[in-house]
């Protein structure tokens, strides 16, 4: 008994030493690069500190008051919501239709899948420049094609009425292949037996099968793709920075672009930090909804 106990204790402490060594780098870096900074943003947002300044004062909620009184902030928030409201249905709808079409028959499946996925992993900064030339008022492809139908030229990215929809089309272009891939995975998990059962019940037309079996079974995946797309659309930045810088006259200013300019162009650290906290709260709420939906999906299947 006395001989065993120290041995076990020794082995135990050895095991926890090994575990401690294994997690130590991650724990230190989590504190230093993630939780520490997250806390720091919250603290900055309560001060008038500027990057490089040697002193600062606590302002309480003054930065937040300034933020909520700032018309440009509200413009950028509304613009972001409008952008999300266009991009989400466009991306999810197009992704679903393409997934259904691709899976309907086997021919050229691989080609279609690869072709639609190509925009997902291409460098957005470079492709935004390409889109900029396609939307150019005189030499751009879009106006050239519209001219064929006698439609007059539009300066898509300089007109406050068209700039957000134009950016949204680029957003849909980049994201719908991703939605498609997720839907295809969802379609593959619909059991064949359900289609057989539906056929026995007389649903032998393709549209009936779609309505009775496929779409209801895709419900959870659809919810999930919706929220994922919304989160990504909320983070829109590259196209705005490359193509419009928030213009004309703030018509395409969005949250993340405001965050970037206030914090790093104007160096208003405290104000930028308050904006960051608001942004963080929105994204976390969206992601938590996503986690909840995902949880439900796991329980259903």
């Amino acid at each position, binding site marked *: 008994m006395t001989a065993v106990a120290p041995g076990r204790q020794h082995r135990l402490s050895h095991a926890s030493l090994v575990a401690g060594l294994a997690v130590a780098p991650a724990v230190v870096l989590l504190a230093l690069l993630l939780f520490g900074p997250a806390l720091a943003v919250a603290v900055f947002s309560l001060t008038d500190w500027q990057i490089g300044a040697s002193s600062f004062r606590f302002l309480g909620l003054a930065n937040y008051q300034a933020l909520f009184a700032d018309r440009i902030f509200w413009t950028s928030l509304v613009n972001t919501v409008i952008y999300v409201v266009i991009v989400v249905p466009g991306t999810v709808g197009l992704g679903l239709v393409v997934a259904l079409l691709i899976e309907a028959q086997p021919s050229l499946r691989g080609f279609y899948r690869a072709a639609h996925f190509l925009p997902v*992993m291409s460098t957005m900064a*470079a492709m935004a420049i390409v889109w900029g030339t396609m939307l150019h008022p005189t030499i751009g492809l879009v106006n050239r094609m519209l001219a064929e139908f006698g439609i007059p030229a539009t300066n898509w990215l300089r007109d406050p009425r068209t700039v957000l929809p134009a950016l949204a089309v680029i957003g849909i272009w980049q994201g719908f292949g991703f939605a498609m891939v997720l839907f295809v995975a969802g379609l593959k998990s619909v059991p064949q037996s359900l289609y057989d059962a539906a056929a026995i019940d007389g649903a032998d037309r393709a549209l009936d099968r779609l309505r009775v079996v496929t779409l209801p079974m895709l419900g959870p995946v659809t919810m999930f793709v919706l929220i994922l797309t919304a989160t990504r659309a909320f983070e829109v930045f590259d196209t705005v920075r490359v193509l419009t810088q928030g213009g004309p006259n703030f018509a395409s200013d969005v949250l993340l672009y405001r965050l970037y300019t206030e914090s790093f162009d104007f160096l208003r650290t405290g104000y930028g930090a308050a904006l960051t906290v608001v942004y963080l709260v929105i994204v976390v709420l969206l992601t938590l909804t996503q986690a909840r939906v995902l949880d439900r999906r796991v329980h259903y299947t």
Partner: protein
Amino acid sequence: MRDLVRNIRVLRWRVLARHGALALTTLFALIPFVWMLSLSVKPPEEIFQPEFHLWPQKFNGLENYSVALTAAPMHLFLINGLFVCATIFLLQLLVCVPCAYALAKLRFRGRDTLFAAVLVGLLVPPQALAIPHFVLLHVFGLLDTYAALILPWIISTFGIFLMRQFFRAVPDELIDAARLDGLGEFEIIWRVMIPVAVPAIAAFGIFSVVAHWNDLFWPLIAIRSEELSTPALGILLFRDDEAGQFLGPLMAGATIIVAPLVVAFLFAQQRFIDGISFTART
């Protein structure tokens, strides 16, 4: 008989409709790439003339691409992209894998707390940490260096979470057998678990490399010098440069920036699709 003929007709119509509709969406997906390639081999006067030809009447590709390669350090953008992405990924692995193994297979005090912290970390969008990361790098005098591009990313809660889920599925018998063979825990991590986890590591690697190759937000903040730019920032600097005012060289530059990932994707499509949609499935 008449039914059969009708069925065949319906079937043929359906095949045609499917290809017709998919041709349209494929065109939407690919047209920017086609437009980019077409302009990248055209002389300026052809880009601005009223009628449009997909293939130029006078091939100007060599001039455009050589302007793109000489007016901006395009090769440096690519090398920086490769170096930064590879270093980030290797350091992420070095930090994530032991931690994920401990979370999945070892018992120790604070394990649940640590895992909860990882889950909370998953919620934080990286852009929200830009200000403190900037300050931290400023304090240590590391802004506008490779370190500024790499350091903020070496801890990946997503990587820890992904690898931990994968390691949990590895049977304990495999680890016990390795322990009986006298292997230490760290030998088990690097010599037993890593080989088993190749699919998960590949998926995480593709996810990580694609994300950081394409990232514009952070390099824009952390980097001032053109010669330290990663691909996404590099093409932006090139556009705002004098030579980038000419569309032919600009499109050639965009092609050079986009090409490496596109070519890699065409060679390993399934791995890429798995890797990028992994975010969604975990």
